[in-house]
């Protein structure tokens, strides 16, 4: 508990130490990317379903905001009040996620990756070729967050605290869910779906419910992301970005909900600063190689490396220690 209080204090005080760039482009962006990756952690880490369509779900929420709310593109922009727009966007994202779940849960393991990847790519091509609703290649621009008097949500500090609130709420929700009845059932289904079915659990329903929960998480982050960017286009929901979410979750580690946020921070820092060390254009090679290194060295991501290091340190000290158990590792082969 103590470490969470320290972490919360650090995160709350963060904007007072750094400038606007670090508050907005690094801090808020990493928190939101981390939240999208958190929705993948719920599915992959607890449910054993590695989905590549979580960014698509976030994108659906983002497009909903641009379509139902205001934009400056003269395509759609129905001008609903912001709270209607936000509610509708998250609800539609959850419904879309449940449908994706319903399509993909009939198959297992790597089939889930293939089907969700196909869904993600289809959505990308669909919004790119559809002009009446999604304005095709250009997308929808001029999406504004709501204003409350003098408080403008896209100012760095307010937006940072909004992102922090979203991330914190879902972090706690996922952390709670892990030990709640539903979360335990989900993890048991991941480890042995047949046995759980024999015990009378409705396996597909639990999986679809996990997709719905992940959809709410990804959808909320998607709403904030479209406010962050002020626009949304097919490039926002492209395959490369969808894969970035997977990279973030894998680099951080899917074992614990803090993993995706660590991954997102590393990713955003690399994106902004590693390119200064090497050729600016070769970011994808760097991040791809980091990803490969993590997959080869530590299936549990940076969290796994951290634990290994800690165990190595403890092994050096003479007093005997209980071996740490990891009941919920990202799993594996059947």
């Amino acid at each position: 508990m103590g470490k969470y209080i320290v972490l919360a204090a650090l995160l709350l005080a963060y904007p007072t130490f750094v400038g606007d760039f670090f508050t907005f482009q690094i801090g808020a962006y990493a928190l939101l990317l981390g939240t999208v990756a958190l929705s993948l952690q719920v599915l992959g880490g607890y449910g054993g379903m590695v989905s590549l369509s979580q960014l698509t779900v976030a994108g659906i929420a983002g497009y909903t905001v641009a379509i139902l709310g205001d934009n400056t593109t003269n395509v759609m922009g129905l001008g609903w009040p912001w709270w209607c727009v936000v509610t509708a966007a998250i609800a539609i994202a959850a419904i879309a996620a449940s449908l994706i779940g319903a399509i993909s849960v009939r198959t297992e393991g790597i089939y889930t990756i293939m089907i969700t990847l196909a869904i993600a790519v289809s959505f990308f091509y669909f919004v790119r070729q559809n002009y009446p609703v999604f304005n095709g290649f250009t997308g929808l621009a001029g999406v504004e967050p709501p204003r409350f008097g003098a408080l403008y949500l896209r100012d760095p500090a307010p937006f940072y605290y909004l992102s922090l609130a979203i991330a914190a709420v879902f972090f706690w929700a996922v952390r709670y869910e892990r030990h709640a009845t539903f979360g335990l059932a989900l993890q048991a289904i991941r480890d042995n779906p047949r046995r759980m079915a024999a015990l009378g659990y409705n396996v597909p329903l639990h999986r679809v419910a996990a997709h719905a929960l992940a959809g709410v998480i990804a959808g909320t982050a998607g709403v904030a992301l479209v406010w962050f960017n002020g626009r949304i286009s097919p490039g926002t929901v492209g395959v490369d970005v969808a894969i970035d979410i997977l990279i973030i979750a894998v680099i951080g580690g899917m074992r614990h909900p803090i993993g995706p946020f660590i991954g997102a921070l590393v990713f955003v820092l690399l994106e902004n600063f590693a390119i200064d060390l090497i050729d600016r254009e070769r970011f994808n090679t760097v991040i791809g190689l980091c990803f490969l290194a993590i997959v080869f060295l530590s299936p549990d991501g940076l969290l796994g490396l951290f634990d290994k290091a800690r165990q190595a340190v403890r092994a050096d000290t003479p007093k005997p220690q209980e071996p740490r158990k990891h009941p919920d590792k990202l799993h594996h082969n059947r």
Partner: protein
Amino acid sequence: MRQEHLTMGVVTCLAAVFVALIFMVWPDWLVDVMGRKKQFVNTFLNGITLAGLYFLVASGFTLVFGLMRNVNLAHGAMYLLGGYIGYEIAERTGNWYLGAVAAFIAVALTGAALQVAVFRRMQGDDLRQTLVTIGISIVAADLMLATWSGTTYQFQPPEWLFGATQLPVITTIKPSGAEVYLNYPTYRLFVLGVAIVVGILLWLFLNRTRIGMMVRAGVDDREMLAASGVNVNLVFVIVFAIGAGLAGFAGVIGGSALSIAPGEDIRYLLASLVVVIVGGMGSVPGAAAGAILIGLAEQFGLAYFPTYGVVLTFLIMVIVLAVRPQGLMGRS
């Protein structure tokens, strides 16, 4: 069995309707309903020739998957790599055929090297293999962008493939009574021909050779194949090389029909994924059936409802997954 008869019946009827629509002269009322016959036949041929290209790409993907349970998400990158290598060789030697052969060999060797150096280390760990192929595809796409830049490359296929061929299909009859025959790009017909030849060669390889027999046995039961004294690793390398080589070869064939540019890798990866999901994972005839279905759906979608074309492809995938999760010709 009864359901299979029903399916066969539906498929035969649909095929008969298509053949009739293509060869008969359309009466006016049909033109009113469906638009001009030329558009319909052109769309149909575009769909079928695109299916040929999709089959070339997806057959390798499904072959690898069927035997090794390795979802090679770098398959699109191999298509693109084949296209670029083929382009370089064809430009330097001035021989397009040499480019196609070189693309096959170079990408097949790359695939074999990947199988030996990377995938063999994580045999049986499907998820990690898939993650590795994702990582490889990211790095490969970026390095190809660095090497060949974002330019679009256009192949120079041999002379005889240029121009159009007159097909024995009457599009309209002029008021003067003269029959107007359909002209169709020769190269696209060539693509279809190549796909059929490759399909037959694959069938012969799988059904008439010793290694093909081992591959089929391995698809059914890997452990038993290994237990009966076959060098499974060698079979894996050969199949991976053929699968990758086909993707590289398709890069030249498809790159000559359209062009070679960054982003094509994703397009053909999606095509392979959907074709294989629809057709049945691991089945080469399934890849052919899926390719025809998806090729036709894509072209008809593009021609008749341009801004919702992808939805048609997507719906086919969803319906197949709902009715037969293992795909049209896949085994459960």
